């Protein structure tokens, strides 16, 4: 088992040492050919590695692959979809990985297809990520020219909408329908694309799986923590000096990660962790916490999609929350009442509070509504949005009262910190 230099180094596993897109030759020179693993050996290695999904759910990857394989056993076929939708506006890590190391992801995708017994293999991205689509198609062509593999990897492009990357929405789109979520169960592992058992896996997770197949579970566990072994890709942005994607072992503290992104331009006040389904946390509560799941859980946070966004005291948390909430309300699939009626009502009420056009009772109404709509959509869109809102109302409680009374604050007119992307109107 040979370990190339950059792979052996402790916390730089997924990303290449130099920021140059790796073609197949460079990939093979660094990692060697993809090893052949029997399905059982691959699943055992995944279980032993403790790898968990990096698309936001943090679900044990081995358990997920086994569930699909078990259902494949009944009908004889399955589908694997690599999820490269990355519809989280502040996240770039999946696109970054696909740009610089597409072949590592494709290796992981092939391992997944072999392990669960899938004939159809798809990589799913979204319309706005045109550069990623091109890089993927080029990488797939390269492999087909070289290779022995008769497995055809299809690239599918869905709409750029916040919930279009959600598992059941993605399955729906790959099956030829609109990219809208569905009621579960059945879950994709039971009945997914074209009613076949379907594994939907985030691309970073697949890249980790490809490394586990090559170097083994003990190697994977040699960095990180018991609960969150290995490394994670993070998109660090906001008030940091050199925003970007970086890779860190899961026992690294938030403070150290921010330092690696050039440190904060100003005094850190709050951190948004996990993206727009994530939580705001006061900087002093989280600065010395590692990104391990249990450590973040102790302050009510989770890594989610790996978004780490730093704000200073000169950021108006209310205006930022207001804009994001309006965005999230606009991203409902329009299917479930509590979401497509409730979210716009909540966003509108929050906007009125933020601009000083509401009665004080509006704050209580927001709290009640935010509890009321949780768990009542087919997907977790309302839940995620309300987690974000609840944390904002807690962390920026004093600012919210100030806005209610004065309609703005010293910092509310500033350039927005949290990105709001242009999204597609359609669902195809």
């Amino acid at each position, binding site marked *: 088992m040979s370990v190339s230099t950059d792979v052996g180094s402790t916390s730089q596993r997924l990303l290449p040492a130099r920021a140059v897109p790796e073609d197949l030759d460079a990939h093979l020179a660094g990692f060697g050919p993809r090893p052949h693993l029997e399905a059982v050996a691959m699943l055992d290695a995944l279980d032993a590695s403790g790898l968990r999904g990096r698309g936001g759910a943090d679900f044990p990857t081995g358990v997920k692959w086994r569930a699909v394989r078990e259902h494949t056993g009944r009908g004889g076929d399955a589908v694997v979809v690599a999820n490269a939708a990355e519809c989280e506006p502040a996240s770039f890590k999946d696109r970054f990985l696909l740009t610089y190391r597409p072949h590592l992801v494709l290796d992981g995708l092939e391992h997944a297809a072999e392990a669960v017994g899938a004939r159809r293999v798809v990589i799913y991205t979204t319309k706005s990520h045109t550069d990623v689509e091109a890089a993927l198609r080029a990488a797939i062509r390269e492999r087909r020219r070289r290779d022995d593999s008769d497995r055809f990897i299809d690239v599918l492009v869905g709409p750029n909408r916040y919930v279009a990357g959600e598992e059941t929405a993605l399955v729906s789109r790959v099956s030829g329908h609109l990219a809208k979520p569905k009621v579960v169960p059945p879950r994709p592992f039971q009945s997914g694309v074209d009613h076949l058992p379907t594994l939907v896996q985030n691309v970073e997770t697949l890249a980790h799986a490809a490394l586990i197949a090559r170097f083994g579970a003990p190697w994977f566990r040699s960095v990180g923590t018991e609960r969150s072994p290995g490394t994670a890709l993070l998109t660090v942005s906001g008030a940091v000096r050199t925003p970007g994607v970086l890779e860190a072992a899961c026992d690294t503290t938030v403070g150290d990660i921010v330092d690696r992104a050039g440190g904060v331009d100003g005094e850190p006040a709050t951190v948004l962790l996990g993206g727009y389904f994530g939580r705001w946390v006061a900087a002093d509560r989280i600065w010395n916490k590692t990104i391990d799941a249990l450590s973040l859980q102790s302050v009510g946070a989770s890594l989610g999609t790996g978004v780490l966004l730093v704000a200073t005291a000169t950021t108006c948390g209310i205006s930022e929350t207001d804009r994001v909430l309006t965005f999230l309300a606009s991203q409902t699939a329009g299917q479930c009442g509590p979401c497509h009626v409730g979210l716009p009502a909540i966003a509108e009420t929050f906007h009125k509070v933020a601009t000083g056009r509401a009665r004080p009772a509006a704050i209580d109404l927001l709290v009640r509504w935010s509890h009321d709509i949780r768990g009542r*959509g087919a997907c977790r869109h309302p839940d995620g949005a309300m987690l974000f809102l609840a944390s904002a109302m807690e962390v920026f409680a004093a600012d919210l009262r100030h806005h209610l009374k004065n309609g703005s604050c010293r910092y509310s007119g500033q350039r927005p910190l949290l990105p709001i992307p242009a999204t597609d109107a359609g669902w195809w």
Partner: protein
Amino acid sequence: MRVRLRVDPIKCKAHGMCGELFPERIRMDDWGYPVVDQRALSDDVLEHARRAIVDCPRAALWVEPVDEPGARVRPDDSD
């Protein structure tokens, strides 16, 4: 078999029948959509649950076994 009531939020179009027929376990939110109590149904409320299920104009309600989430049970099988 212990069962609980579930609503398909995509099918539901806020007709409000279920809240009228089964107020013990269903309340309406501010927009007229049902909020369903997720606890197992006790024997004394089963008849009201059955009525809510069969009278829903969207057929959006069903019961599932508490220990087997996802499995659907016909309203007349719940004994």
